[in-house]
């Protein structure tokens, strides 16, 4: 797959001396959904704002579809739609005027059918003549999406699209994102919610303190970094772990009827076969067994802790 956005050695130091981005390099692939995951203050918004021209980079460069964001800003920005994190809308305009303004601002000729369809897709059509301040928070979030999509961008940035949005709407939002991806739009979104990244992203980037810690295919990431747990349920509770099993660093549950074994799926051997054999030899009888994959959340917490 080819690259649509290329970020090289991007750093940002704000006027007050705070370093919000620290030598970030990243290639975003055409047509993918990339989730940027990171705690508050990690630099996610700064990264997006820099690409969109709202923040000037201190050093490094970014190209969008081959166009430099500073030298060829017109060509670069034309391709981008941005949904900001905050609900920043002018209150007294009508919804229709707001999106018509956005389209014109990006130099696109008026296209009433397209905008009408857009509003329908976002379930906003019946509100089109209302003033913005009369809409609910979730509706305003969708208005921001409508504005970003009004000029038919090739790339969409969603800065925390589901913050303050209820579960139903969140699912709708995910559907919209998938529909856009199917239409060929590249989507970059930031989120605090691991489930969100897990549910919709193709790739996940983890960012903390201005550093991009890793970028991985979501599935790879889960496999590569994901430790698995094997939980063995015993028919009869025990008080101590038998000597012969000491090397496995098993964890015995309080009730004494469950043994948990942590293993790495990427290691040469998982050790499960011999573990089970020795368990039987030690005279323990198994009632049940299950394996559990660590969630992205566990991976994330590990990474962030490592970097601090």
């Amino acid at each position, binding site marked *: 797959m080819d690259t649509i956005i290329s970020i090289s050695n991007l750093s940002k130091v*704000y*006027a007050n001396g705070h370093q919000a981005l620290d030598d970030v390099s990243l290639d975003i692939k055409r047509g993918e959904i990339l989730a940027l995951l990171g705690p508050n203050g990690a630099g996610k918004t700064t990264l997006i*704002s820099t690409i*969109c*021209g*709202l*923040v*000037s980079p201190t050093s490094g460069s970014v190209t969008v579809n081959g166009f430099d964001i500073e030298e060829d*800003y*017109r*060509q*670069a*920005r*034309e391709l*981008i739609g*941005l949904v*900001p994190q*905050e609900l*920043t*809308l*002018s*209150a*007294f*305009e009508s919804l229709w*005027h707001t999106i018509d*303004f*956005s389209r*014109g*601002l*990006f*130099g*696109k*000729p008026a296209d009433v059918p397209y905008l009408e369809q857009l509003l329908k897709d976002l379930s906003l059509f019946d509100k089109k003549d209302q003033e913005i301040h009369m809409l609910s928070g979730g509706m305003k979030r969708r208005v921001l999406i409508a*504005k970003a999509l009004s000029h038919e961008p090739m790339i969409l940035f969603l800065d925390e699209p589901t913050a303050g949005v209820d579960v139903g709407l969140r699912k709708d939002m995910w559907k919209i994102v998938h529909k856009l991806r199917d239409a060929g739009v590249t989507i970059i979104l930031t989120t605090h919610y691991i489930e969100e990244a897990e549910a919709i992203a193709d790739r996940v980037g983890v960012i903390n303190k201005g550093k991009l810690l890793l970028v991985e295919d979501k599935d790879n990431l889960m496999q590569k970094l994901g430790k698995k747990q094997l939980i063995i349920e015993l028919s009869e509770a025990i008080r101590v772990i038998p000597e012969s099993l000491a090397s496995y660093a098993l964890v015995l549950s309080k009730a004494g009827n469950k043994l948990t074994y942590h293993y790495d799926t990427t290691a040469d051997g998982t050790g499960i076969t011999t573990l089970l054999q020795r368990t039987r030899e030690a005279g323990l009888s198994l009632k049940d067994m299950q394996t559990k994959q660590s969630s992205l959340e566990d991976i994330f917490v590990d990474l962030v802790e490592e970097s601090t």
Partner: protein
Amino acid sequence: MSFRAVSTIYKYEMLRTWRTLFQSVASPVLSTSLYFVVFGTAIGSRIQAIEGVSYGLFIVPGLIMLAILTQSIANASFGIFFPKFTGAIYEVMSAPISFFEILLGYVGAAASKSFIIGIIILTTANLFVDIQVAHPIWMLTFLILTCISFSLLGFILGLWAKNFEQLQIVPLLIVTPLVFLGGTFYSVNMLPPIWQTITLFNPVLYLVSGFRWSFFEVSDVHVWLSLAVILSFLATCIAIVWWMFKTGYRLKK
């Protein structure tokens, strides 16, 4: 150059005017009419003609200047301050347009609005007194240049202001005194000599004088000097705006 983007900004700024039509047009017209009733008719009837121009007539150009100066500053500063305040400016800043195009849209709209208000006030004044314009081209030139340069000043103010208080303090503390002390209601010759000298440092004097000359061929300073002052004022504003855009002043972090 994206004409579509410029015209979009222009159109929606004008639409905002339309939405707030009453305060945009009614209030300057009303206050100007009140000035006429009080100064032009009630007091003016007891003031002798200045250089052959009756007092009611004499104050017309000054009143128009007063209105378009305040309106230009208020409209242009609010036009850019408000989206900055709500954060909606992000969209303009991330659009594929240059700062110059942004400026053209916002300042163009503010200046057009002031120009319309100027014409409306002139028409209103014509109901009170019979106005003859000796040099219509000069009159329009001064009117248009003033609308543009003070809209630019308003734009600068709107970019600079961090809060509503700052937005209002400049017109209140600086512009209003300059306008009142700029020969709006009197001829500079009527002042004591020391004040005459001080007044010469007030740029508004040159605007009012030149503008008045285009009506009655009566002026405090030579009309070419007036033109030179307004043009340098315009150039200064352009230079400041250019610098602001170059550095992304208060817009780009």
